[in-house]
């Protein structure tokens, strides 16, 4: 929630060293040197006040240029951009270590601006360890004179704002040398530094080490030249170095901090390992690592099911471009947050900066008096219900008496521009009386815990039992009990929440805010505003990503209140930090699971105790809890089951819907348990699943009737037939990594379930322009519903996909088709097209027949118009355009339908009826120096019925897969006492391109052979990635991770030989 400054800093372009130093060093001025300024936005976003004066030093000749020195070294002017260094031929040839280090700093776009001086002068730059190891000196302008000193000494100087770094000077590289550098981060691509390490060995002609320099630093690790470790190696021969002893010496000497991401001991160990691995190669790595005997599973030969590979080359004749791709690639598409119109005000929201407090008073008078402010709203402006929520309305639109989490809205302002709105926000005085913070679900349910809501912190408890669990344990030959932890994942849609509200001249309201169910947003707004639904038009598409995170209301209510009060259009677009702090997340889960099987591997008993963090308000969390429990046994038949699930209110960030919706978390635990038991039994993971899987045609987990189609056995066959098992596994040739393969199954229910109203609707109409408008009240968030609409409607009507104009996400133009969630959109589109398509086809032919004086039976709907059914010719008798032009507006063909989503009649709990199925296989490499995991291969075998749009199907599976990869390896919103500490992409680690699998394939078994059409795959891609990765790690190193995101620290401990205890 960045505060905008009202006064811009002054800029001075320094013309001399003295002038620059005088200005920056002047204690009366708040001035500082500036070159690339790439760190400035970051610092300000973290709450630092910007300096009043920026002293631009980039024009100073003494700071410019890269030039070789007489002694064979090189002088790099401090104002040299990192990208310039990367392009410098001399550095490339003679100091590749430096170039390699730079390549791991930030990203190319940032390196075009960032300078070596800025990297070094901050003392935290990632170049520093390398420069220290290269024995760099620096030239500094200090107290009126230019001096030269070792970099290490410079870093030890007391900070002085007037001291100007002029250049970094590298001595020549030793004639013979060996070098190492490794930046260890939080993910593979574009990462902040956990620790960076560099080493240089100077060798004589006999490979004896003449001198050795080791250094660490970067990020929160202070720069440090490691003298003792260097001294150990002096005089040794490279071939006979005791690498384990060197590792211990390095670990002993490195000083590093702990933070929320990594411990000090991890930093030391990983840095030391990396140096040793880089310098010593395979032999050194073997010396550091355990070599456990792992029997790696090889499946028995099995016939591969008749899958297709979903790709453009494989399906070239079916590959179509979605209708919006062109405008998206060209950047022409206007998102709702891009909308501008005259007289438009800009809104900002006043939010609680405290996790739990009573509101004593809110004073908006100063803000209202500020020129340029058009409206200020608080709870007292709400005429209707001050509460919303899809399941229950426990969340205030604007808090009146209490705030329950950081970011809770208490007021909002609309002003002529953003700067004025920001100023007004700063003028609003909210007095709080702090309450004790409940920051853990376990603590929330403890007796005497402070109540987040008056009714208590146990939002919901669900129990289910079958058979006799207590007695069944006696019949188990093997029992595994563990606790699986899952993260608070951020949706991370690229377009943050926002949009506009326009009060129309007729008194109605147009709300254009990205969402996933316009009709429900309208219902919720109507309650809050006390305004009839008919007078509210909600536009929810197109929006830049949802994943469940825009299912609930976001900014609509405060925006609408402001627009109504000001009588003018108002817009808002949350900045990333505000979005992260206030948006809903994936519910963190703690899953205690005890699973038993008999000696043959037959599952006998399953006990699950699930504790879910709800955050401050319910939103869809109760349904997430229920869905998780619906997957408590996965697709396996277990006679004796007992489950308990509890959802606890806390003052943590609010949670709710997120792709997978509880199923993927529970599948992680179940699939790991089953595979671990298979190891105990001594059978393979495929065989174990085969003997326990529910048979097609038998009831679902809760005893409910499910669709008769099941493809999990085929998915299991696909997993068994996978060529990934035969790819290289075990230690890699260079010994840097250990490679493993793992698999897991998932079945994802489609639809909202048996106890929730779940209906769909569609309208097909020929527009006066001759386009076939297919209107669905679904939302296009990127997932490609517009392509599905074109495919399904074209198939049902008989026209071409390009004849179809999808109309979505607008309550004024499309019927209520239900929410765009729960993988239901594809079915809704297909069903609507099937029901309305035949009628519409007939109407088209009849209308054409009247004009052409031909019976409708003789006509056929073809691509672009109507053709003669009695010939094979595609020649049109009349085009849609001509047909529309010749029909009166009220006689244009139009067909509509509404229908229920397929359901089971089970009512004791929420249960799904139709499912999609998948087997995920991954091949991972575990880095033996750092414990980091890289996904090499990601194969997803799927059975979700006919593939309507190959590109969309592929995209959903791949996108879900990589989102699951992030969940598994790097993503977690970290909080401290209810405050989020990972509020932007510098600290919250979604997969970057460097984290994407090296190879990925998606396969589809299209034949589902039932009446329920194509299934949605919006959630299928994320369903079993986590347990597949866990299994692959176990295959590689023999360790089953139970905490996600999987900690490299745990894996490093599992692969490392522990050093001698001091």
């Amino acid at each position: 929630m960045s505060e905008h400054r009202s006064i811009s800093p002054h800029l001075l372009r320094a013309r001399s060293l003295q002038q620059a130093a005088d200005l920056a060093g002047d204690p009366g001025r708040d001035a500082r040197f500036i070159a690339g300024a790439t760190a400035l936005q970051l610092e300000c976003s973290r709450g630092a006040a910007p300096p009043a004066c920026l002293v631009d030093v980039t024009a100073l000749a003494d700071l410019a240029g890269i030039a070789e020195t007489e002694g064979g070294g090189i002088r790099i002017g401090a104002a040299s951009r990192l990208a310039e260094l990367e392009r410098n031929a001399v550095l490339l040839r003679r100091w590749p270590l430096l170039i390699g280090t730079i390549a791991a700093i930030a990203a190319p776009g940032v390196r075009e601006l960032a300078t070596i001086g800025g990297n070094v002068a901050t003392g935290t730059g990632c170049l520093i360890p390398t420069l220290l190891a290269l024995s760099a000196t620096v030239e500094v302008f200090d107290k009126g004179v230019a001096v030269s000193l070792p970099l290490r000494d410079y870093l030890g100087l007391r900070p002085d704002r007037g001291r100007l770094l002029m250049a970094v000077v590298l001595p020549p590289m030793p004639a013979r040398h060996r070098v190492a550098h490794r930046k260890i981060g939080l993910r593979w691509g574009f990462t902040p530094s956990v620790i960076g390490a560099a080493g240089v060995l100077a060798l004589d002609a006999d490979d004896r080490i003449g001198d050795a320099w080791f250094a660490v630093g970067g990020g929160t690790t202070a720069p440090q030249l490691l003298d003792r470790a260097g001294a150990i190696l002096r005089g040794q021969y490279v071939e006979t170095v005791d690498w384990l002893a060197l590792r211990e010496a390095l670990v002993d000497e490195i000083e590093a901090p702990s933070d929320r991401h990594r411990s000090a001991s991890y930093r030391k160990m990983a840095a030391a390992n990396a140096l040793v691995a880089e310098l010593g190669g395979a032999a050194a790595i073997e010396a550091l690592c355990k070599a456990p005997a792992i029997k790696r599973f090889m499946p028995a030969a099995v016939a591969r099911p008749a899958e297709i590979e979903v790709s453009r080359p494989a399906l070239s004749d079916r590959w179509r471009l979605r209708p919006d791709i062109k405008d998206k690639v060209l950047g022409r598409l206007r998102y709702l947050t891009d909308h501008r119109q005259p007289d438009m005000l800009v809104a900002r929201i006043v939010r609680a900066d405290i996790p739990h407090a009573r509101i004593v008073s809110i004073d908006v008078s100063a803000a209202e008096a500020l020129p340029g402010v058009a409206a200020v709203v608080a709870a007292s402006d709400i005429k209707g219900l001050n509460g919303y929520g899809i399941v229950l309305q426990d969340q205030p639109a604007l808090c009146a008496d209490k705030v329950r989490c950081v970011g809770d809205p208490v007021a909002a302002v609309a002003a002529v521009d953003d700067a004025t709105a920001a100023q007004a926000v700063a003028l609003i005085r909210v007095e709080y009386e702090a309450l004790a913070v409940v920051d853990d679900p376990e603590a929330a349910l403890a007796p005497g815990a402070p109540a987040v809501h008056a009714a208590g912190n146990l939002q919901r408890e669900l129990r289910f039992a079958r058979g006799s669990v207590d007695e069944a344990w006696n019949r188990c030959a093997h029992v595994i009990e563990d606790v699986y932890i899952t993260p608070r994942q951020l949706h991370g849609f690229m377009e943050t929440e926002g949009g506009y509200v326009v009060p129309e001249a007729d008194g109605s309201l147009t709300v254009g805010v990205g969402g996933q169910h316009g009709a429900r947003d309208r219902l919720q707004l109507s309650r809050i505003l006390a305004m009839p639904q008919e007078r509210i038009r909600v536009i929810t598409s197109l929006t830049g990503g949802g994943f469940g995170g825009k299912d609930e209301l976001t900014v609509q209510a405060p925006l609408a209140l402001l627009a109504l009060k000001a009588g003018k259009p108002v817009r808002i677009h949350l900045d990333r930090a505000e979005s992260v702090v206030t948006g809903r997340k994936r519910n963190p889960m703690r899953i205690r699971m005890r699973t038993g099987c008999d000696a043959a591997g037959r599952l006998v008993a399953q006990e699950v105790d699930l504790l879910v963090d709800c955050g401050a308000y319910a939103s869809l969390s109760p349904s997430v809890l229920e869905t998780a429990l619906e997957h408590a046994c996965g697709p396996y038949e277990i006679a004796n089951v007992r489950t308990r699930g509890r959802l606890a209110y806390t003052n943590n960030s609010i949670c709710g819907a997120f792709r997978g919706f509880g199923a993927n978390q529970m599948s992680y635990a179940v699939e790991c348990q089953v595979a671990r038991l298979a190891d105990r039994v001594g059978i393979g993971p495929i065989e174990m699943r085969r003997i326990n899987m529910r048979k097609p045609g038998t009831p679902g987990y809760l005893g409910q009737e499910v669709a008769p189609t099941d493809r999990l056995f085929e998915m299991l066959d696909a997993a068994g037939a996978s060529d990934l098992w035969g790819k290289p596994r075990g230690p890699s040739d260079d010994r840097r990594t250990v490679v493993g393969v793992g698999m897991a199954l998932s079945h994802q229910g489609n639809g909202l379930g048996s106890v929730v109203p779940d209906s769909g609707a569609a309208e097909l109409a020929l527009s006066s322009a001759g386009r076939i408008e297919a209107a669905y009240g679904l939302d296009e968030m990127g997932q490609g519903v517009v392509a599905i609409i074109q495919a399904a409607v074209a198939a049902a009507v008989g026209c071409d996909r390009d004849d179809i104009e999808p109309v979505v996400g607008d309550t004024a133009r499309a019927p209520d088709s239900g929410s765009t969630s729960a993988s239901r959109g594809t079915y809704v589109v297909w069903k609507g097209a099937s029901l309305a398509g035949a009628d519409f086809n007939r109407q088209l032919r009849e209308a054409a027949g009247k004009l052409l004086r031909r019976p409708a039976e003789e006509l056929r709907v073809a691509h672009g118009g109507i053709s003669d059914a009695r010939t094979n010719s595609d020649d049109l008798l009349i085009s849609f355009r001509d047909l529309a032009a010749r029909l009166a507006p009220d006689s244009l063909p139009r067909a509509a339908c509404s229908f229920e989503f397929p359901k089971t009649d089970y009512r004791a709990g929420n249960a799904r009826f139709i499912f999609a199925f998948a087997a995920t296989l991954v091949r991972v490499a575990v880095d033996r120096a750092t414990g980091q995991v890289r996904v090499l291969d990601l194969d997803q075998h799927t059975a979700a019925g006919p593939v309507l749009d190959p590109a969309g199907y592929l995209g959903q599976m791949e996108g879900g897969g990589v989102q699951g990869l992030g969940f598994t390896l790097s993503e977690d919103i970290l909080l401290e006492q209810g405050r989020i500490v990972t509020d932007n992409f510098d600290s919250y680690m979604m997969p970057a391109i460097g984290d994407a699998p090296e190879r990925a394939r998606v396969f589809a078994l299209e034949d589902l052979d039932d009446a329920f059409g194509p299934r949605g795959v919006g959630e299928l891609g994320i369903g079993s990635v986590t347990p597949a990765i866990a299994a692959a790690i176990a295959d590689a190193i023999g360790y089953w991770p139970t905490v996600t995101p999987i900690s490299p620290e745990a894996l490093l401990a599992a692969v490392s030989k522990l050093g001698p205890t001091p």
Partner: protein
Amino acid sequence: MNEIAAEATATTRFRLNGVEQVLRVAADARLIDLIRERFGLMATKAACRIGRCGSCLVLVDGKAINACLMMGWQLDGADIVTAEGLDALPEGRAVRAALMTEVAFQCGYCAPGFTVALTALFRRDPLAQEGAIRAALAGNLCRCTGYLSILRGAATARAALGGQRTDSVSCPHDQAAKENHHVDSRNRARRRAQHSGD
């Protein structure tokens, strides 16, 4: 020190999509805000505003730079091309066509940033292989696709630009190879730097 006139705003001259602009801008005005709010060019997206997502990449003197990091005082003399202006460049056209063919995007919010980054890459190195492509896109986040479709789009663009060579096959386009020799040698240097040097 009073002879030094430190200024909060300055008259700045730059080119934007080929058109000369003269503006008085605040020293700390961000390029992204100028592009979107002063010029109404909405392809450039603000999704993190700290240089960590690449949604706001624009070409500055041919290089892809984060418009959220670049400030008013750095703009004088710059030649800026936003996603709206990429059609003027052959590499821009090839990149866009390839990304469409592969249906490389879903929500599309990150698309302009990726097209700018890829255009800058292929202007520098029309033969860029996957490693170089991943390196060039290191600063671009996409949440929908998992990047795989974007990598396919980049490979298709490379093929369209004539760089069908892979690392194992010799390049038929000698001239292009010659022009890009320095890039290859840099890539080699990078690889060397990651291993033990000698």
